[in-house]
């Protein structure tokens, strides 16, 4: 479904950073290759600055790799970015919504931008609002809603066009237990609906609960890619955290 081949991403450093680091470019992602099959849930783990967000943005066709290729369902992200983005639902850390719109208007806006026709939009909105219990506050402006309610609206707007692929960048960071639960429910629901999900996280309980495959990133490089069960079985360490740290140490 999603294929990355020797993907690298370089950013030009600012003048201040050039002096600080001594190099003109920041290698955010270096030579990463992996494949995520259709319907799989892949967890992207790694310390801060490992390149997870950049990698997700490149998969979402929002950024172009400096070298290497990314293809989604056989189509290159470089040449088919708009049609690839239409198949995806993207949610990032602390994504905020438009506070002056209501839940209903927000979901309508994202549905129409994704070119969902009006009758399908109404039907899917109704389904999602029922599934996520949004009906009660659908006409309220988002500024007046709680974090949990907003998170539900965020999920609804991500799923409104029934994306085949979900890309979630640390979706539970900063959320309380209940709001996090909405996200894990979303991933499980997507799994059940044969969606391909790639999500980055720092929470190992989520990895254990949700992931089929994992990719461990460190300093922009791929440190591990494989089945989660194999990682759990074969890596040294008593807990998942220890295994993860061991994996990073192996790479140096």
């Amino acid at each position, binding site marked *: 479904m999603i294929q990355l081949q020797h993907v690298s991403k370089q*950013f030009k450093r600012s003048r201040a950073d050039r002096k600080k680091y001594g190099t003109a470019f920041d290698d955010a992602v270096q030579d990463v290759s992996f494949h995520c099959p259709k319907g799989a849930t892949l967890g992207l783990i790694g310390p801060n600055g490992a390149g997870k967000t950049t990698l997700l943005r490149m998969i979402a066709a*929002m950024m172009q790799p400096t070298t290497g290729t990314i293809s989604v369902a056989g189509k290159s992200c470089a040449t088919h970015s*708009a049609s690839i*983005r239409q198949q995806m639902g993207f949610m990032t850390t602390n*994504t905020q919504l438009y506070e*002056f719109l209501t839940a209903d208007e927000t979901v309508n806006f994202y549905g129409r*931008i994704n070119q969902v026709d009006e009758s399908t939009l109404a039907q899917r909105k109704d389904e999602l609002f029922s599934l996520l219990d949004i009906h009660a506050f659908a006409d309220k402006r988002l500024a007046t809603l709680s974090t949990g309610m907003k998170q539900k609206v965020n999920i609804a707007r991500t799923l409104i066009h029934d994306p085949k692929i979900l890309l979630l960048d640390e979706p539970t960071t900063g959320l309380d237990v209940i709001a996090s639960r909405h996200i894990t429910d979303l991933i499980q629901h997507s799994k059940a609906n044969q969606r391909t999900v790639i999500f980055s996280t720092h929470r190992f309980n989520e990895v254990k609960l949700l992931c089929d495959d994992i990719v461990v990133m460190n300093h922009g490089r791929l440190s591990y890619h494989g089945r989660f069960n194999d990682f759990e079985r074969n890596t040294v360490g008593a807990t998942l955290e220890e295994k993860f740290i061991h994996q990073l140490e192996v790479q140096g």
Partner: protein
Amino acid sequence: MNIVRLLCYKDFKMLARDRSTMITLILFPLMMGPLGLGFEYLMVHLVQHQAKKEIHIGVVGLNHAPTLYYLLRSDTQLILHTDINEADIQRQINDKSIQVALVIPETFTTDTQQMKTSTIQLYFKTKGGTGDLPIRHIKQLLTLFKGMQNTQRLGALQLTEAQLSAVKIEQQDLASKEERSGKMAGMFLPMLLFFNCLFICMAVALEMGVGEKEKKTLETLLSLPIQRIKLLGAKFIVLFSVALWAPCATLATIVLVFMFPPDFIPAHIIQFSEPLLRPQVIIIMVLLMLPIAAFFALLMLLISLWSKTIAQGSAYMSLLTVSIMSMMLIPVIFSIDLNGFTAMIPVLNVLIACREVTAGTITALPLVIVLLSSLALIAATITIASKIMLKEHIIFAP
């Protein structure tokens, strides 16, 4: 629905629901006319009030100049303080027991009789504005007194004023009354319109660019199947609309105020505004505001998208606004005319053109050059803005 229309609709809806932005957007330009009126009313009222107010004047040696004494005493606005001495004048003016003081020398009568120049000292403290009206009043009285004394002396010498005046200069300003008042009106009005346009653009652009970056809603938009140029286009359309609204609404309220002027507005102010009521002036002014609104909208959007934080964005925008406002003073100070060269200097050309329009001295060719050079400027700014929109390290920063 068309993507650009959807994006514009969303932004317009957000603007309409943001109370603080709406207050700025609607009240700020619409209040310009009434605010100007209020200020004018206040000025007229203050001047009238000052004109009726008692003026406490200390006079030392009043008995040496009887004519001046009768002149001062006949003025009902003056309260004379004759019991002061010269050494006390500064203290009395400082503690406000008197506003002005005159010191008439003991030799005044003999000096006058001997056809010598006698010096009367006038003490006052400049306050500025309407605070100086009492001083002006006394100066007028003294000028009258001086005239009376001179006439008396000329009479004694059996001379006429014409015999003392060898050369008389008559001034003939060839600029028509309309041209003069048009140049005055055209000097300040565009500055007001430009300022409103910049200010409104700044308020809205911050939220639409860097505001969306900070809230990560821009990232969500970029993850949707939208071409970035369309996203930029939609934001530009919204910002251009509000940028054009601000000067047009300001102009409309000012025109309305002068179409139906209240009684208290002095005749010279109404005469000053006459050029603004000519339909062709209003049409050309709006036409000139089109490229300016587009340029300011693009410029502010560009800065907003380029900035990393709202604070950084507002700092850059404020700096730009101050620079543009300072630039606007150039044609006022140096009285630059519109010619082939000045018609190509961005922003300044529209400012000078506005002045020429209100004065009724603009010709077609410079106007066309102004519009064409403004269009070229807009094209250049659009190119830069669309390039910025493609720069990943800018759009995804911080």
